[in-house]
């Protein structure tokens, strides 16, 4: 109180004419915002605890609740905005680094929204996906640069290991620990049903999910949590996580409170110990070290698993990617600065990294200029929000996209951005059993399948409009894109023309 007081960010607005005091809101709020007053016979709220996750709003049977942004304001100041001032207060109160979750919420440019897609008219027929086959399958991995023939003249058809996807989307890395067992179960089951892959993140693979191995990317991060030979061989591909778009240059930190039971066993670390991944891999201080890790992993898996190297989009991403493309890696995953996280220092999340659109364009061009685009596939993530974003990414040069926030939204996430609290009311970013059970994987996986099915329909629709009936003919097809409101430099980096050209 006093100098430490910060006015609550949200207000709980309860329509008492509608409230039947069923107490669903009370039972469903892990933040303990709502309670029933026996004396007054009504529900009341402590809004200081509200994070605006919308759980109570969603479950209230009489729609008696809404959460609004508090209109209690500090004096307006274009330079010292409300949030900035409050962050100062918080730091003055605590002396600590501010933590945040999910992706960068700042009003920085979203290039996807400044790129428009082409369609066929007259000279070239659009294709109707309801009547004609429309192919969205992609194969990620190194492509041989020369066709070899045997003595009999037949082509030798051995390919380096490939990842087959029914559509150019994968669920990106979210560790078991940062998200719940049921969230993982939903992702794994949906990926299997869809014929795509999900990603373990750096928390290891729960033994129950080995059966989804064909649709799993197993991640190896700097903390090496849960990494062992069976784990490496369990998935369809291995991902070396070098960095994350939400927090380039730093490692992860899963608080000990989330390291309980199966999480601790799966990570192979003691219960309640903080899981801290170092900023670098301590065996990778240069590109040649990366090459050694890539080949160690390939050795451990008899060269049967493609290796993905995931990096955050940073300033010299093109050169980094060129290095990775020559490291033996099969796929490069680039995570843009808008990518989500279960917890990251706010300053880093909001100020470090570059937009994935520009990173992708630069990397794709660089690899082509060097003639090594076929060495690797490119996967991009960091706020791919819709089928249109996927189309644009593929046309810019991506082989596939990584999707996480959209998947979480499908599971019920309302982007309250307080994953770090571990009290996710939607059963996603929590390990509390009473909260975890709120996410029924039957529902979760079905919703993920719905979402991706919808995206696939949209992708096919848009492709058909362009007169393209296979996704590979879209990859790198930048003529299908035009910029709006972009300057010369941006257009040059994106490698696209301005609308009207």
């Amino acid at each position, binding site marked *: 109180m006093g100098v430490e007081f910060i006015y609550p960010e949200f207000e709980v607005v309860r329509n008492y004419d509608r409230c039947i005091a069923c107490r669903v809101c009370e039972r469903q709020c892990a933040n303990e915002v709502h309670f029933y007053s026996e004396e007054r016979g009504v529900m009341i709220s402590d809004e200081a605890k509200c994070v605006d996750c919308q759980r109570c709003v969603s479950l209230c*049977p009489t729609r008696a609740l809404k959460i609004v942004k508090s209109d209690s304001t500090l004096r307006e100041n274009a330079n010292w905005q409300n949030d900035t001032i409050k962050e100062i207060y918080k730091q003055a109160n605590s002396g600590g680094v501010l933590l945040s979750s999910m992706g960068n919420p700042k009003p920085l440019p979203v290039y996807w929204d400044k790129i428009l897609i082409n369609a066929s008219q007259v000279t070239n027929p659009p294709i109707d996906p309801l009547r004609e086959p429309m192919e969205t399958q992609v194969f990620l991995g190194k492509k041989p640069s020369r066709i070899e023939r045997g003595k009999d003249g037949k082509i030798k058809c051995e390919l380096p290991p490939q990842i087959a996807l029914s559509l150019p989307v994968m669920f990106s890395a979210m560790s078991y620990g940062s998200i719940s067992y049921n969230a993982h179960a939903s992702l794994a089951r949906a990926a299997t049903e869809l014929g795509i892959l999900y990603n373990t993140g750096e928390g290891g693979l729960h033994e129950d999910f080995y059966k989804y191995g064909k649709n799993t990317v197993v991640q190896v991060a700097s903390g090496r949590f849960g990494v062992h030979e069976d784990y490496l061989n369990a998935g369809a591909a291995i991902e070396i996580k070098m960095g994350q778009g939400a927090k380039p240059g730093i490692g992860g930190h899963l608080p000990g409170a989330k390291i309980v039971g199966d999480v601790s066993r799966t990570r192979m670390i003691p219960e309640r110990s903080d899981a801290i991944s170092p900023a670098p891999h301590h065996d990778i201080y240069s590109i040649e070290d990366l090459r050694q890790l890539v080949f160690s992993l390939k050795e451990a898996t008899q060269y049967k698993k493609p290796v993905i190297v995931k990096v955050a989009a940073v300033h010299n991403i093109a050169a980094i990617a060129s290095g990775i493309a020559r490291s033996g890696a099969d796929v490069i995953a680039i995570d843009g600065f808008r990518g989500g996280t279960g917890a990251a220092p706010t300053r880093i999340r909001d100020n470090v990294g570059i937009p994935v659109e520009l990173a992708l364009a630069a990397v794709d061009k660089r690899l082509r200029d060097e003639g090594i685009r076929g060495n690797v596939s490119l996967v991009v993530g960091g706020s791919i929000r819709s089928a249109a974003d996927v189309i644009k990414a593929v046309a810019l040069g991506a082989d596939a996209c990584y999707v996480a926030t959209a998947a979480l939204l499908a599971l019920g996430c309302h982007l309250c951005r307080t994953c770090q609290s571990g009290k996710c009311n939607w059963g996603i970013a929590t390990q509390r059993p*009473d909260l975890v059970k709120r996410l029924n994987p039957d529902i979760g996986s079905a919703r993920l399948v719905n979402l991706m099915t919808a995206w696939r329909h949209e992708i096919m629709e848009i492709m058909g409009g362009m007169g393209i009936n296979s996704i590979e003919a879209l990859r790198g097809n930048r003529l299908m894109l035009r910029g709006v409101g972009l300057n010369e430099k941006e257009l040059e980096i994106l490698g696209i023309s301005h609308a009207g050209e």
Partner: protein
Amino acid sequence: MKRVYVNEEWCLGCHLCEYNCAYANSGLKDMVVALKDKKIFPRIRVEGEDRITFAVSCRHCTDPICVKSCIAGAISKRDGVVRIDRNKCVGCLTCVLVCPYGALAPGEDGIMQKCELCLDNACGAPACVTGCPNRAIVYEERSETQ
């Protein structure tokens, strides 16, 4: 036949099923009018505490002992659905005494009421199922062996 099944693994203990049941059987069009400032007498009840919760309503047993035991002959089974004739019931609670599932309880008037699958109210399908936010209650066909 279709029955209501409960999977406690997904029950959140939110008690919405009780409110949806009470509303569905109120005959009123507005939930607020039906339930505001009233004690509810739902035909499905959430049991349990903290970690384990589950909803219980009539199992519509293959061989329902309540039907055999009702001293007023008020409970019968037709088309697989165990129903109660509230007009005949005198509220002796013998059915409570015999039901191995604890699935019956009196209504506000002391007369017994029970889940009749919302077949006769405006919902047409069990309101507890429709309103369950986590599919802990389902209405489906299952075989004896399942």
